[in-house]
């Protein structure tokens, strides 16, 4: 099956063309060893099929950034990538003066190449007319005018690619070094390269690629190559940069000539629409206000807008579990299926509405062109954590839920920025932490005197937890930047694309692919972790001691009426459940944790709560309820149940206001969530990062909760 690569600058409609070519066959994978997405799909062509492979959008092939390095590898068949049989380069027809650089570099690789002059409709609307035949002749490759969004030109493109693969590329002048110094440097590099362990360079352009690549960027994917390059070239960084800029200037001189010959422009009639919109959306006053409005709406949609859908999923899953429990005879297998597997599937499904809504919002913002403006406006703010503005949406969505937030970090171009964002996202207080905060504040601060007479003390504390997470995220981000994700802050140099009407097809495909990928790839991990956690909380099964049971049964017998008997019966069940839980593996772990968490003021019961709430933080409440022998809250109104659990926390576990604060801090900082572990494992393609985040954040949480307690004790609180 021929391999066709799709390359192009960002914002040229490459994704749109990819969708038009491959439809719903697209699959998202990863490049080997690196967390950059590799999208590929299949196109039916006549009797055969093409495998179409979308390269990361980039401005140049000379590796300054990992995306460019990957694009180059994929085109040259390096590092386990198949060498493509043909390349389609997507260009913005209205912007050839910039887009031609990448096309010309790719032509120099000598593969069958076809240029897709996309966005022809926009170019004509701007008064440009492009002599595509003249351009084809000058470049020696077919140039096909297209409007990918409307599917115009797709068939012509297909024919051009078919032909390009059959006939050898029209002989065109090979790239030649524009100056004798550069030619000498290239010859020297080609001669000495092998001795330093660099691969043979077949053409002058390939030598040029090596000479101009950034050694540090090379090291990331080909260890040793950067140092070898520096040694083999025998040139200082500034000498290499001077040659590089000479070559770039020569290239653009060619490009300017081509554009002057083949593009003509009628003077635009009026100020372009995009500029008029920007004067509102990037207005010094209106811009930030509208930004807050847009982001507020996105957050609200993910945070609260999905509640009906989540509730519906919960009740459907509960109905299914109920059916299965009735239908299967009571057995260990039934418990595994109902309490493990089905609970895990439900635990996966509840994320789907959030993911769908978030990516719907992101796709609309991105396709319309607003996301680039949002990244621009937040760039300075996030610069304090060493992050670019593109980290804003992932971090904001993490306040609703860390899982979709971490997924949203995929849109970040630089892998090291993305890693930092993923690792600090769990510090954003997600909505699952709110029930825990509320439990504590309602239990120990309900009667606290309002601050300044009006502000609820508990409310301020909760707000403080959000602030704590945010401040820590900036600090941890800055530390990670200096340690594991080192390197200069990536540049802004952001293209602001023209505003466009989002395309329904693009948006729908983004949402569909994200949801599908989450369910198929992260879902099984969540199910597996749910089963493990359930098993820990179930085995070994220890029955209530006979004497205790007998005493409780005597209560049933002694009850005077039917409701009394029922209450006594429930007490037996609750006691059995509490006994079983505290003797299960999770119970043993909870007991074993006690010496570790005692300095924070937590007893083993809270320890079991910490283990159980790993399923999802809000589960702390029913787990504690079971430990205290209050059951899981079945048939009780939420507030009443919370009061019962809170009462037991104070009565049995000696929760004081100070311990309450420690507990809140612990939950604000610790990564108490297996779905977050699963998504980090999936997104970073390793277990190293999720485990490091788990240990690191939980240790940090311990230290801060401890410090808070010591401070409080020193200040005379209890």
């Amino acid at each position: 099956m021929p391999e066709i690569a799709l390359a192009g600058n960002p914002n040229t409609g490459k994704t749109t063309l990819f969708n038009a070519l491959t439809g719903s066959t697209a699959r998202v994978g990863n490049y080997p060893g690196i967390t950059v997405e590799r999208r590929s799909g299949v196109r039916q062509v006549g009797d055969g099929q093409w495998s179409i492979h979308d390269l990361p959008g980039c401005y140049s092939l000379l590796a300054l950034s990992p995306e460019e390095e990957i694009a180059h590898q994929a085109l040259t068949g390096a590092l386990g990538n198949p060498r493509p049989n043909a390349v389609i380069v997507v260009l913005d027809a209205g912007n050839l003066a910039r887009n031609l650089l990448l096309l010309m570099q790719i032509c120099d690789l000598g593969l069958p190449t076809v240029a897709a002059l996309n966005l022809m409709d926009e170019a004509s609307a701007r008064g440009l007319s492009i002599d595509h035949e003249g351009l084809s002749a000058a470049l020696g490759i077919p140039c096909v005018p297209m409007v990918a969004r409307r599917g115009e030109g797709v068939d012509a493109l297909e024919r051009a690619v078919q032909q390009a693969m059959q006939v050898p590329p029209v002989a065109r002048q090979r790239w030649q070094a524009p100056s004798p110094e550069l030619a000498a440097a290239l010859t020297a590099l080609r001669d000495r390269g092998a001795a330093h362990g660099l691969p043979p360079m077949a053409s002058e352009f390939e030598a040029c690629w090596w000479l101009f690549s950034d050694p540090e960027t090379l090291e990331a994917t080909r260890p040793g190559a950067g140092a070898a390059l520096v040694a083999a070239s025998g040139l200082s960084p500034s000498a290499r940069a001077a040659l590089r800029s000479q070559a770039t200037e020569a290239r653009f001189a060619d490009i300017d000539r081509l554009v002057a010959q083949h593009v003509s422009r009628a003077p635009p009639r009026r100020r372009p629409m995009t500029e008029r919109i920007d004067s509102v959306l990037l207005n010094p006053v209106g811009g930030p206000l509208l930004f807050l409005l847009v982001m507020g709406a996105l957050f609200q949609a993910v945070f609260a807008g999905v509640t009906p859908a989540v509730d519906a999923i919960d009740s459907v899953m509960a109905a299914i579990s109920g059916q299965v429990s009735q239908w299967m005879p009571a057995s260990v297998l039934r418990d595994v299926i109902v309490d493990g597997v089905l609970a895990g599937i439900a635990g996966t499904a509840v994320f789907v509405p959030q993911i769908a809504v978030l990516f719907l919002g992101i796709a609309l913002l991105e396709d319309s062109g607003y996301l680039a403006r949002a990244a621009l406006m937040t760039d300075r703010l996030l610069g304090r954590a060493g992050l670019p503005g593109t980290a804003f949406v992932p971090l904001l969505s993490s306040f609703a839920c860390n899982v979709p937030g971490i997924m949203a970090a995929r849109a970040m171009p630089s892998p090291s920025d993305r890693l930092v964002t993923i690792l600090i996202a769990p510090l954003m207080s997600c909505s699952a932490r709110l029930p825990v905060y509320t439990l504590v504040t309602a239990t120990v601060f309900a009667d606290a005197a309002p601050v300044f007479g009006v502000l609820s003390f508990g409310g301020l504390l909760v707000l403080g937890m959000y602030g704590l997470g945010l401040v820590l995220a900036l600090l941890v981000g800055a530390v990670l930047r200096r340690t594991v994700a080192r390197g200069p802050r990536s540049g802004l140099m952001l293209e602001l694309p023209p505003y466009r009407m989002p395309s329904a097809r693009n948006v729908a495909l983004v949402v569909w692919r994200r949801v599908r990928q989450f369910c198929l790839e992260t879902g099984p991990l969540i199910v597996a972790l749910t089963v493990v956690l359930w098993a820990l909380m179930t085995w070994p099964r220890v029955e209530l001691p006979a004497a205790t049971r007998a005493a409780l049964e005597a209560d049933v017998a002694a009850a005077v009426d039917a409701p009394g008997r029922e209450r006594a019966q429930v007490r037996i069940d609750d006691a059995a459940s509490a006994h079983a839980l505290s003797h299960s593996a999770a119970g043993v772990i909870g007991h074993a944790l006690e010496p570790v968490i005692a300095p924070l003021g937590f007893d083993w019961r809270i320890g079991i709560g910490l283990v159980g709430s790993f399923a999802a933080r809000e589960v702390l409440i029913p787990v504690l309820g079971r430990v205290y022998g209050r059951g899981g809250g079945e048939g009780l109104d939420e507030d009443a149940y919370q009061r019962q659990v809170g009462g037991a926390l104070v009565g049995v576990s000696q929760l004081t206001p100070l311990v309450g604060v420690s507990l809140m801090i612990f939950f604000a900082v610790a990564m108490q969530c297996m779905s977050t572990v699963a998504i980090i494992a999936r997104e970073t393609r390793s277990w190293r990062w999720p485990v490091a985040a788990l240990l690191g954040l939980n240790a940090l949480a311990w230290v801060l909760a401890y410090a808070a307690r010591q401070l409080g004790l020193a200040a005379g609180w209890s």
Partner: protein
Amino acid sequence: MATQGRPLCDADAGTDGEVLTIVGDGRVPSRLRELGLTPGTGLRVVRRAPMGGAIVVQVRGFTLALRRDEAALVQLSAIGVPALAGGGDA
């Protein structure tokens, strides 16, 4: 390297100019050159973005936003009168 031009970061919205040179040889200057900011290329400062003062320019038919420190690497020559039509309104 000639640096008698005026750095782009000091230019006001509405300024028309030409790139004289890009200073430096790290990744950022190389990227700026590859985006087409080669000597002699015409450029217009469209506006300063809110919240942080990034500078938005129009160059080679597209709109590019640069941080202040990135814009400081671009030296402009032949600075023109602020354009009346289609200028920034900041």
